[in-house]
């Protein structure tokens, strides 16, 4: 297993705070801009970066990420190119964990063994593949663990105590708690309930638990950071990026900065909450 995820959570713990996890779509609105944004994220305060693999049929994503995926596909983004962007990111940043997030079909078509070898080689640390529940662990999860990549599982409000052990069994790196039943970028959850949900999961695992879905601002990030080991933000970043695109959907001079501005705000939100008392 790569050590970057563990090291980064350790560092956050030492600083007495939660981690900020950011998601952007590879190739949105074009490969070079998405790489530039990716590189800027750690500097703006992101601790872990998730890079989305575009897919034509993202059945668990809301309109923002659906549109981002289509923008990326329109300019020809594919899995080979996404891995290449990570290689270039890794050449400059050796420490920030990179998680690939997406759907199984493009990886299945790429070939599982070949994909895992290539992903490891370019410096990927973990995978979040939305449509692979534990019932399908032998498809990718177990081969990924064997190849030394973390397979990060989503736990949801419908994952009850009876099911949690199965969901957590082969999870590595961290656990991603989806705070609502719903798609990405949907309604803002009741952040007050997040802490107790995280507690329930922590009962079953020593891994860090990060929380996502519905976090849009520094204030939201702070609210989630109180109860979780990390905060994930995706759709909100994609929305501000989209807001800077020209009429043809191309990047403008404001694109990168608009995203980093929000990431800085989120980072301040996360850092405003001290976790030392809890530790």
């Amino acid at each position, binding site marked *: 297993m790569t050590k970057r995820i563990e090291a980064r959570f350790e560092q956050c713990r030492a600083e007495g705070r939660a981690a900020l996890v950011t998601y952007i779509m590879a190739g949105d609105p074009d490969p070079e801009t998405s790489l530039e944004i990716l590189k800027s994220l750690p500097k703006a305060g992101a601790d872990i970066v998730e890079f989305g693999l575009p897919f034509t*049929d993202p*059945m668990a*994503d809301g309109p923002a990420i659906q549109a981002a995926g289509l923008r990326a596909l329109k300019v020809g983004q*594919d899995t080979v190119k996404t891995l290449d962007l990570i290689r270039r990111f890794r050449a400059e940043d050796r420490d920030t964990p990179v998680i690939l997030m997406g759907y199984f*079909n*493009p990886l*299945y*078509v790429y070939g599982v063994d070949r994909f895992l070898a290539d992903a490891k080689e370019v410096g990927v640390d973990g995978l979040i593949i939305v449509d692979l529940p534990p019932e*399908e662990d032998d498809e990718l999860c177990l081969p990924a663990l064997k190849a030394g990549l973390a397979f990060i599982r*989503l736990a949801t409000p419908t994952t009850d105590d009876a099911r949690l052990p199965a969901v957590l069994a082969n999870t590595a790196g961290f656990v991603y708690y989806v705070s609502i039943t719903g798609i990405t970028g949907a309604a803002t959850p009741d952040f007050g309930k997040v802490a107790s949900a995280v507690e329930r999961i922590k009962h079953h695992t020593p891994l860090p638990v990060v929380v996502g879905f519905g976090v849009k601002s520094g204030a939201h990030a702070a609210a989630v950071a109180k109860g979780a080991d990390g905060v994930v933000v995706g759709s909100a970043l994609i929305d501000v990026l989209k807001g800077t695109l020209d009429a043809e959907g191309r990047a403008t001079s404001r694109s990168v900065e608009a995203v980093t501005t929000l990431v800085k705000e989120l980072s301040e939100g996360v850092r405003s909450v001290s976790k030392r008392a809890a530790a």
Partner: protein
Amino acid sequence: MSAQAQPNSFRIGPDERGHFGQFGGRFVAETLMPNILELEKAYNEARNDPGFHADMAYFSTHYIGRPSPLYYAERMTEHLGGAKIYFKREELNHTGAHKVNNVLGQILLARRMGKKRIIAETGAGQHGVATATLCARFGLECIVYMGAVDVERQKPNVFRMNMLGAKVVPVQSGTKTLKDAMNEALRDWVTNVADTFYCIGTVAGPHPYPAMVRDFQCVIGDETRKQMMEAEGRLPDSLVACIGGGSNAIGLFHPFLDDKDVEIYGVEAAGHGLDKLHAASLTGGRPGVLHGNRTYLLMNEDGQISDAHSISAGLDYPGIGPEHAWLHEMGRVTYISATDDEALEAFQLCSRLEGILPALEPSHALAKVIELAPKKPKDHLMVVNISGRGDKDLFQIAEHLGNKL
């Protein structure tokens, strides 16, 4: 294909994880897994409950109008000069297609599970109409997701659903057709897991849907078996059905899979031609994972799903049920395809010779009957599933034939 080891029976699948060979499975978001497990449990209880079967039988007879006739198509037989052709008349069911067989089963199951909100996806609108119909009958809320492009080209069915009290949601995402309607229905289900039942219209989706929908459609083949024994004193020699997702086909085929002498033909939609835009997933696709199962899909080299095309909105889907993918690889069923033009010709021939306007979907099956029947001897018994009636397609057919209604 035929090099693969043949199973003792083709009718025992799927395994407990929902696999037909390498196909099928449960490729869904974690949020849905508890629901899918709950559904599987409820279905297993229902299928072992005589009360459930009694309800099915009652509504099949008195509401749907089953059994549907097995009709000797005498003039078509004479015209083609070969096999003796029988039509399984699924177009005579209430709502005009085979879709209602499955919807009845799922709605009765939803009632048992206490689910009051029903969602469905639809392409041509036949499954949406059947779902809206049964929801009206049982007083359930009904939301139908339909690609915005399909809403435009199937207006009469949208109006029918509205009249039945259903809410039709035009889907603007992706290619705005059936696959996107299915994505949107899955998104709804992820959001409303607690009170919602997802009524899938074909033998696709995560386990247990492919097996459950097949079981509800097997009434087609079971009746055919019995009716053919009564009419001819023996089993048919061949079966022909069209395939989009493949529910009418599997319903006819499944009860005959272990009768080795029965030839079975599934007809995919070849659209403008297999080298152009089409919807023939087995002939022109490769194995992949979409909408909860592994099956043959139309996609590019990166695994991005392609647009399907067929003149028939009901066949316009880039995938196929996983059991068909398995039967294809095992070589038990022969999968062939018919183009838009061949289907249109078959539609006209059937209308004029038999006085039956078939839907464009079974017109694809008829197109291959026109090819196959003349090569068979006169004592060859061929059954073709007329899975729906053509009224819904009249505007589109008129346009293709250069008329304006």
